[in-house]
C-alpha cells in the first residue's frame, strides 16, 4: 500500500535570508562578506538611527539598494501545513508541552519579542493577548479554524485544525534550539532556524535534528514505520505500523492498537 510521505524537519545547505531595509539606507557589508547573527549589515536612512542585524550566520550574496541584503546560510526548515499573518522573526521559546494548550495565563509580557511554541492555541483570546504583549509569532500543532482565521499574529500550524499535538520531532528540535533567533514565514508555511556560527558545533546541532530531504511523495507502507494518524479521535498523533491487512492498517498508538484505513495515514520521515 502506497502512503503519502510527511516530512516536517529538513536541513537545507543553501537557504537565502532576506534582511529588508524597507527604504533608503547604507550597507555595512559587501557581497561575499561573512556575517554572524548580531553583525550590523545596514543602516536605514531617515529614521531614528536604526541598524539592521544579519540575524543569521552566513555569506552576503547580494545587496539590493533601497531594499534588502540577501544572505546565504544553511538552516533547518520546519514545515507546517497552514500559516497566517506576515513574515516575522524572534527568539524561539517553548511556552507549553507538545500536546498542551498555550493557555491565556501562559501568555505574559515576558514573551515579548518571542516566537512561542506549544501544542495548540485554545481560543482567539490567546492570539489577541499574545499580539498585545509583543509576541512575534506562534508555532503550534493546531488551533480552532475560526480563531485561526481571525488571528492577526503570524502563526504556523504544523498539523491542522483543532487540537492535534505538535509533531514530537518538531517539538524536540525546537526545544534544542530554544533561545535562537528564528524566521517565521506563514505564507510559505515554514519556520527557519538558521546557522548562527561558523563553528562545527552549531552545524552538528542543526544536523542532528534533521532528516535528509526526501523526494519520494508516496512510499510503500511497511511494518515498523512511523506514521501520523488522521482519524478524528487521534488526529495528528504518531504511531507505529504493526500490520497491513488489505486497505486497513494496524497501528500501535499510545500503548494501544487501532485499525486505521491506509488512506488516513502519512509516513513520517
Amino acid at each position: 500500500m502506497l502512503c503519502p510521505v510527511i516530512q516536517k524537519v529538513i536541513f537545507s545547505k543553501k537557504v537565502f535570508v532576506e534582511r529588508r531595509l524597507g527604504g533608503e539606507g547604507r550597507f555595512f557589508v559587501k557581497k561575499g562578506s561573512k556575517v554572524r547573527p548580531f553583525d550590523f549589515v545596514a543602516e536605514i536612512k531617515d529614521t531614528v538611527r536604526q541598524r539592521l542585524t544579519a540575524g543569521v550566520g552566513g555569506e552576503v550574496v547580494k545587496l539590493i539598494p533601497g531594499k534588502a541584503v540577501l544572505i546565504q546560510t544553511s538552516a533547518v526548515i520546519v514545515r507546517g501545513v497552514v500559516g497566517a499573518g506576515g513574515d516575522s522573526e524572534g527568539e524561539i521559546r517553548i511556552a507549553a508541552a507538545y500536546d498542551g494548550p498555550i493557555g491565556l495565563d501562559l501568555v505574559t509580557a515576558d514573551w515579548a519579542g518571542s516566537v512561542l511554541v506549544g501544542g495548540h492555541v485554545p481560543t482567539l483570546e490567546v492570539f489577541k493577548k499574545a499580539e498585545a504583549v509583543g509576541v512575534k509569532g506562534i508555532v503550534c500543532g493546531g488551533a480552532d479554524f475560526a480563531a485561526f482565521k481571525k488571528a492577526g499574529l503570524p502563526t504556523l500550524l504544523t498539523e491542522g485544525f483543532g487540537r492535534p499535538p505538535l509533531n514530537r520531532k518538531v517539538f524536540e528540535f525546537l526545544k534544542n534550539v530554544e533561545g535562537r533567533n528564528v524566521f517565521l514565514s506563514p505564507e510559505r508555511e515554514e519556520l527557519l532556524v538558521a546557522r548562527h556560527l561558523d563553528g562545527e558545533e552549531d552545524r552538528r546541532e542543526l544536523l542532528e535534528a534533521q532528516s535528509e530531504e526526501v523526494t519520494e511523495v508516496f512510499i510503500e507502507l511497511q511494518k515498523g514505520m512511523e506514521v501520523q494518524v488522521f482519524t478524528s479521535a487521534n488526529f495528528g498523533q504518531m504511531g507505529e505500523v504493526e500490520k497491513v491487512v488489505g486497505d486497513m492498517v494496524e497501528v500501535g498508538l499510545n500503548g494501544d492498537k487501532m485499525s486505521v484505513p491506509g488512506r488516513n495515514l502519512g509516513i513520517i520521515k
Partner: protein
Amino acid sequence: MILSIDFGGAVAKVLIVRERDFEVVEVPLGFRTRPRLTISETLRYIIKQAVGDKKPEAIYASGEIASVELKEILTKPPLDPVEALEKLELPIVVVGAGIICVNGTAVRGVEIEDYAEDIARWLPFEVNISEIQNYFANKKLYPQIIPTTEREIRLEQAAARVRIRSPITNYQLPITNDYVIASGGVFSKAPTASCVVLTLLDALQPEGLFKVFLDRKQMLPALAALASYNEEEAQKILDQDPFAFLGAVFSVPEGAFFQVDLGLAEPQELEVSPGELVVFPLDTGKTAKVRFETKSRKGEFEAEGGPAGLVIDARGRPLELPRGENERIRVLQEWEESICFAPLFKK
C-alpha cells in the same frame, strides 16, 4: 486502451476504456503537506498506478489543471470539469461535494467551512460549530482521508445536503427532471441506499415522481471528459447502463391515500399523513402500479423497485426544519427511521 482521468478531487478516478469493457481505478492523491508532486508528476503517478507501464492510445483529463508540460502526457488539452459535465447533457447530475450539475448547468460547490451552522441543522445530534469547521478545514489539508466514525459520516452527509442545496437556491436552478444521477464519494461510500436517497431528497426537494440512480464507480466526471473528445466511446459506456437504480420517490405536497398494485390479488393500501416520510418496500426487479388520491387531485404512476424501495414524501416544499434544537433533532431522527428498513448505522 483509452484513459480518461478525473483529476478534480482528493482521489483521481481513471476510466480505463478497453475494446470490450471498461473499469474505473481510484488513485488517492495524498495530502497538501510536503513533499508533494507537481501537476505533471501527479498525472504520471496516476497513470502509472492505473495501468502500470502500458501505453494507452489516448489520455484525456479533466480537472483544474493547466500546465504546458501536460502536452507531453495528454492527447488533448485538459478540460474544465464544469464545462465537461455541462456537455454531457444529463438531466440532473450531482457530483459529490465539488461540483453540482443540474439540468445542464454545472456550478462549483460552496466553501463548506463557511456554512457550518447550516450543516449543524442537518445533524441529528448536538454539535459544536468549531468541530464542523475544523473537520472540513482538515479535509482540505489532507484531502484523501476518509470518514471512519458514524459521526464523521453524518457530518459528510449533512454537508452534502448544504453543498447541493446552496447553489440550487443561490442560482435558482430548477429541479424539473424526473431523475437524478448521484456521483461522488459521499454517495458511493454511503452505508445504505436509503442514506443516499434521503440526502438527495432533503437537498434537491423534488416534486412528483423522481428516480434516484447512483454512479457507484464515480465515473461521471471522467466520462464527461471522454465524451468531450470521443463521443462514440462514451456512448458505448452509457449504453451499458452504468448507473445503479436505487429507488423511486414520490413527493406530494399534502397527505394522500395510495393503492400499490404489485399484480397480486389485492392492491396494498397506504395512507400517508401530511409531514410524513414513508417507505414502501418495493424490491429490486419488481414494478408496481400506484394510484394516489389527495384532497385536490387523483393520479397514477408506475414505480420500479430498488434497494431503497418506493419512498413517499409528504413533508411539503420547501422543506422546513423546526427551529428548536430538541424538536429539530427529533424530526431528523424520525425521518431517518421512517426511510430505512434497517438502522443506517450499527449501534
